[in-house]
């Protein structure tokens, strides 16, 4: 699904090449793909419709600057719009209130409320040195109170005892009194999971809210949620004055379209994301990360821009021709490639943007780190033109000279020459199978003609 979408979009981008402005006609196909992508990512249909309409209106008539294709402009609009709608990063809790600041958790069954109470408590304690008390008023699910008690104790958080035969309103009233008495900075209140259509339970949480007057009322939502996320979010947002949203279980492989649905429907910021079952698995919300994931393309979109803007097209074309003709890839070409990579923000930033690159082991990444690139560049710069064109002439004494000139060791020069040989071989192989060209085309869909086999 992942590859399909990337493939389909690059196809659309290719088809749109060479047009002067965005029109109803030339964006229709691309918008269809985007619509499908959003639905496959579980963005709720009404939200998808609004979104597509937004992007369409924004894009129509837009003039295309020479360096970009219409497809790119459109896809970039999609991405920008998505990030804008996801809301800002770095929104945080409203802790600047007279203590105790009260945080009320609300959400469906199994969303991750109790776990998030512990995570938040831990975060407040570790990062903000707050004195945190927790309390559970989940008198319904078996062992729910015990679950919070164990989590609180394991993490050195104050725990206000309650029991399943008490009324939730009584529990929170007593807890609030105790938090004041003990001069707590924060009181986090866990509530039972409830369906948004359960009128009694929704009335109950409204009542809890009235008593607690929380500085934050958070809606906890499972990132694997589907279309129904709009319904529950809407009902919770109507029943309670929510202040924010926490997205849980983002350590899974769901595309997380619910994030956009919930954000749209509640209008409230997503503040944190849960990334695991352990207490420290809570991270501030990253709009770009979630946006790219919804589109399912790593950061391919921003890579499109980087490659397009920074690649020296003439150079690339020249190189491609050369490789194709079978005349050797020499150190001058290698130097040129290094320069371009550095221009694009270095190898690591480029690799970061490729989907699936997260899985590359750290050790492998280190072999291609940017310092290495700079070093390689320095070595080549210390060579004579003849050495660059015909690396075979580089003998022992030349190596010594180059090493001294570039502030490196002879074994560095040896390694460079070895790497270069490998690269040369790889280039030959790729020019035959069209490997590199295919890869680059897959990424952007519109690299210079010369890159294609």
């Amino acid at each position: 699904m992942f590859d399909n979408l990337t493939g389909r979009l690059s196809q659309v981008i290719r088809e749109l090449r060479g047009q002067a402005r965005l029109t109803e006609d030339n964006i229709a196909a691309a918008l269809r793909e985007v619509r499908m992508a959003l639905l496959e990512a579980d963005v709720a249909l009404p939200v998808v419709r609004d979104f597509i309409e937004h992007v369409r209106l924004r894009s129509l008539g837009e003039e295309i600057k020479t360096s970009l294709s219409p497809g790119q402009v459109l896809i970039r609009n999609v991405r920008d719009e998505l990030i804008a709608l996801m809301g800002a990063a770095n929104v945080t809790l409203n802790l600047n209130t007279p203590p105790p600041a009260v945080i009320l958790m609300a959400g469906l069954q199994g969303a991750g409320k109790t776990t998030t109470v512990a995570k938040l408590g831990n975060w407040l304690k570790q990062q903000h040195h707050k004195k945190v008390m927790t309390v559970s008023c989940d008198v319904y699910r078996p062992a729910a109170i015990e679950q919070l008690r164990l989590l609180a104790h394991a993490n050195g958080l104050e725990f206000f005892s309650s029991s399943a035969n008490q009324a939730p309103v009584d529990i929170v009233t007593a807890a609030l009194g105790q938090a004041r008495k003990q001069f707590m900075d924060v009181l986090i209140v866990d509530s039972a999971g409830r369906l948004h259509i359960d009128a009694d339970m929704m009335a109950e949480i409204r009542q809890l809210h009235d008593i607690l007057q929380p500085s934050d009322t958070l809606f906890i939502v499972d990132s694997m949620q589907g279309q129904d996320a709009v319904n529950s979010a809407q009902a919770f947002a109507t029943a309670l004055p929510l202040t924010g949203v926490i997205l849980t279980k983002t350590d899974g492989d769901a595309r997380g379209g619910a994030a956009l649905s919930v954000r749209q429907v509640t209008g409230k910021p997503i503040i944190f994301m849960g990334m695991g079952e352990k207490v420290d698995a809570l991270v501030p919300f990253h709009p770009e990360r979630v946006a790219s994931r919804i589109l399912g393309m790593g950061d391919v979109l921003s890579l499109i821009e980087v490659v397009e803007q920074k690649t020296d097209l003439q150079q690339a074309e020249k190189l491609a021709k050369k490789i194709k003709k079978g005349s050797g890839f020499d150190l001058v070409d290698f130097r040129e490639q290094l320069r371009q990579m550095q221009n694009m923000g270095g190898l690591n930033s480029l690799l970061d943007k490729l989907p699936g690159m997260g899985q590359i082991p750290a050790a492998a990444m280190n072999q291609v780190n940017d310092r290495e690139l700079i070093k390689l560049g320095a070595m080549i710069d210390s060579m004579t033109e003849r050495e660059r064109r015909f690396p075979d002439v580089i003998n022992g004494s030349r190596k010594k000279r180059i090493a001294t000139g570039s502030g490196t060791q002879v074994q560095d020069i040896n390694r460079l020459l070895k790497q270069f040989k490998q690269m040369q071989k790889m280039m030959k192989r790729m020019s035959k199978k069209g490997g590199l060209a295919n890869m680059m085309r897959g990424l952007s869909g519109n690299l210079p003609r010369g890159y294609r086999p």
Partner: protein
Amino acid sequence: MFGLNKNSTTEENQTGMLARLRQGLAKTRSKLFSGIESLIGTKRAIDPALLEEIEARLLMADIGVAATARIIEALSSAMRRHELNDMDQLLDTLKARMVELLEPVTRPLLIPDDTAKPFVILVIGVNGSGKTTTIGKMTSYFQDQGHSVLLAAGDTFRAAAIEQIQHWGETTRVPVIAQQSGADSAAVIFDALQSARAHAIDLVIADTAGRLHNKNNLMQELSKIRRIITKFDPSLPVEVLLVLDAGTGQNALSQAQQFNEVINITGLVLTKLDGTARGGVVFSIAHTLNIPIRFIGVGEKLQDLRPFQAEDFVTALLDIRE
């Protein structure tokens, strides 16, 4: 109104699956989601615009882009053949087509009495999907059929998971085999099998910790559990039951696929259908994996479990009423 379910007003059906499913919908009807009847309107022409609205309805029930396209294609080809002359025919065709897709996976879970004992139900799924609650409900369900049951507290990871299943053991008065928190889950389940055999118990239901399907180490733990069961007695009948939250979107397919790769799933349970989520993703799961759907969960109480029935499920999904 559309001639569907004319015979579903009997006493029995009122407490059945459909009645319980409808209860959720009847409580509050979101403005975004109204039943298919409201978008159709009796005098409306049967045209492509109508198909588009039906398509929207299917998408909003989490049926997914591909499966929705398959269903709509079937409808529009019937339309091209002029088989859909009025609303009744359209709805009948739509419903029949959808029921047909789920018929192959409508196979209830039966405990045979001529196999080695105990019958084992291993309950797995992602975090918070409803595994432990479903275990409580199944205990009561199979007790009603006359089986003796024993529970294994195989979730040794989540805080108070053991206390949670022990609660269900107490309410249903069945033994719960547990070790301390953090113990080896496979060892707990092995213990439970031994105890069940020693006491000639019919059915062992084993809980496991919720785990996300993309976590390799946690998934390996499941295959270990599965191996231990075989090691105890290779002839034991084992049901591996994947519990899915009906609110889950397209990710449920990925869940089913990846759990199935590691540990052969033999049945599904769809929980939380008492809400407004319709669990339409089971159409793609049925299409790609053909795993029987055994039960649906319609609430948090012991009695809120129903055997899955394709027709009622589809009727509730489309929200068609008499």
